């Protein structure tokens, strides 16, 4: 009940549902969903596993306005199957991206909240991720920025991390995590000495928003509010890199330099220290404003070709 009287933009991005994020992110009342839940386009596969289905398969796609400009939007619902990519879920994003080169919106926004591929539909999910990445390349090549927003419970893991790395620009919050193998996957395969998934501070430090922003894996750090993500999205649309040889050569140089400078580091705090952060231990506790002030004093963080 309290949701009705609360300003949707003041809400926590982390706590909000995918629909609430879209509502607060876009200009009020501007969102028009495509293939909404009333169409009941559910997974044809989950019943085989005796698993419940969702009317939208955990993916909401549509069009709306951001700061008066037309955008296409896709949002993953992390509360359904961990936001994982199944056949319908992935195909909705693929379809939205394929519409973008002709429609030429001001941007395509992807609100990530995913653990990666839905294992019950693994081959369909994996292939959809490849299709999404190809489609993003086409959208970017057509001059339309693809902006990823990452701050949900499920983070952006597995193939979601690869899709994030394909976007023109990324905004991430403290709670947003970007990674390929998740902590539990590394622990299961390599042991707790390699990665203790219960050590939450280690998880945030290694995969969390501040580390990604500090090392160039994301372009903006946002407070955990819908309003902050809205402001970040508006800003990032205006400074999206082209998808061309110049950008990818610059990214190649950026990623090679990272290996040279930090390849022997064991922990994120060591990397932050080498970046010039005086008190790495204090970084996890910094507010977004203090963190932005810290960033302003570090040259490398403007190195953001992607």
């Amino acid at each position, binding site marked *: 009940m309290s949701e009705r009287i609360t300003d949707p933009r003041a809400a926590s991005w982390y706590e909000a549902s995918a629909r609430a994020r879209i509502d607060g992110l876009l200009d009020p009342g*501007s969102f*028009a969903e495509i*293939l909404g839940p009333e169409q009941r*386009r559910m997974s*044809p*596969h989950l019943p*085989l*596993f005796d698993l419940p289905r969702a009317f939208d398969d955990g993916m909401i796609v549509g069009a709306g306005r951001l700061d008066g400009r*037309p955008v296409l939007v896709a949002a993953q619902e992390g509360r359904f199957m961990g936001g994982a990519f199944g*056949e*319908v879920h*992935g*195909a*909705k994003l*693929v*379809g939205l991206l*394929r*519409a973008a080169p002709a*429609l030429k*919106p001001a941007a395509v926004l992807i609100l990530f909240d995913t653990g990666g*591929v839905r*294992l019950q*539909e*693994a*081959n369909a*999910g*994996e*292939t959809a991720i*490849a*299709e999404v*990445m190809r489609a993003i*390349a086409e959208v970017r090549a057509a001059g339309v920025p693809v902006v990823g927003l990452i701050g949900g419970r499920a983070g*952006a893991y*597995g*193939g979601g*991390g*690869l*899709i994030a*790395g394909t976007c023109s620009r990324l905004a991430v919050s403290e709670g947003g995590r*970007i990674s*390929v*193998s998740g902590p539990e996957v*590394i622990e299961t395969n390599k042991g707790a000495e*390699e990665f203790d998934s219960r050590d939450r501070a280690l998880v945030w430090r*290694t995969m969390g928003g501040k580390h990604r922003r500090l090392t*160039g*894996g994301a372009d903006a750090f946002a407070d955990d509010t819908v309003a902050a993500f809205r402001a970040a999205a508006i800003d990032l649309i205006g400074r999206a890199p082209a*998808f*061309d*040889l110049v950008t*990818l050569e610059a*990214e*190649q140089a950026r*990623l090679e330099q*990272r*290996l040279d400078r930090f*390849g022997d580091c064991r*922990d*994120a705090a060591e990397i932050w220290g080498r970046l010039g952060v005086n008190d790495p231990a204090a970084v996890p506790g910094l507010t977004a404003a203090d963190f932005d002030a810290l960033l302003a004093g570090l040259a490398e963080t403007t190195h953001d070709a*992607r």
Partner: protein
Amino acid sequence: MTLAEILASLFPEGHDVAVTDGLVAGDGPFWGGRLAVIGVDGNTALGVEGACRLAGCVLDVVRRGGGTPILVVVDSDSQRMSRRDELLGLNEYLAHLAKCLLLADRGGHPTVGLVYGHTAAGAFIATALATRALAGLPGANPSVMDLPSVARVTKLPLDRLEAMAKDTPVFAPGLDNMVRTGAVHAVLDPAQPLGPQVAALIDGLPAADTRDALGAERGGRPVAQAIAAEVARGARLG
């Protein structure tokens, strides 16, 4: 087929393709021009250094121009699973490799994948699945995750999963299932020279991404194409 056999079949006049630390790179004479080859051999896990090196090779091909096609050969593990790789931003390295292949393809360098061994998860997406057409050789075993791991995550008994895998291509590992979902376009014949077969794939490359159409046709992904088409048709700017 082993990588050496594949290269011998592709390049009967010899080639300059070398394998270092499980990473494949080089080129050879091909139909009056050159064919660039990159990839992963020996069930090697793809980590930050490997992805970065392969991406650099792709960019070299693009910089040289001339429309040289790129063959991505894969017999890999999954992405390298380590704290260090994730600390350094493995997602960016793998995505960068995929983007370089997508850029090359858009820039007139046809890209073809060839899976001849294992491959899985992020390593698969960053390499073979980022090409315009993906071929497999019999005996290849692409997967997202092996069934024992699927059993652990889904908490379903392994014997039940194995039984379901027999007639449910959408989740079970293996080349046949990836063919049916449309991820793998064609299976090559190892008894015939590979050069003409790869050349035929390059000549017949689809202009658009047809994997969902193949998946619908072959029954491995029954609804993806229809859903994507419906969303694309329904999209209008407000």
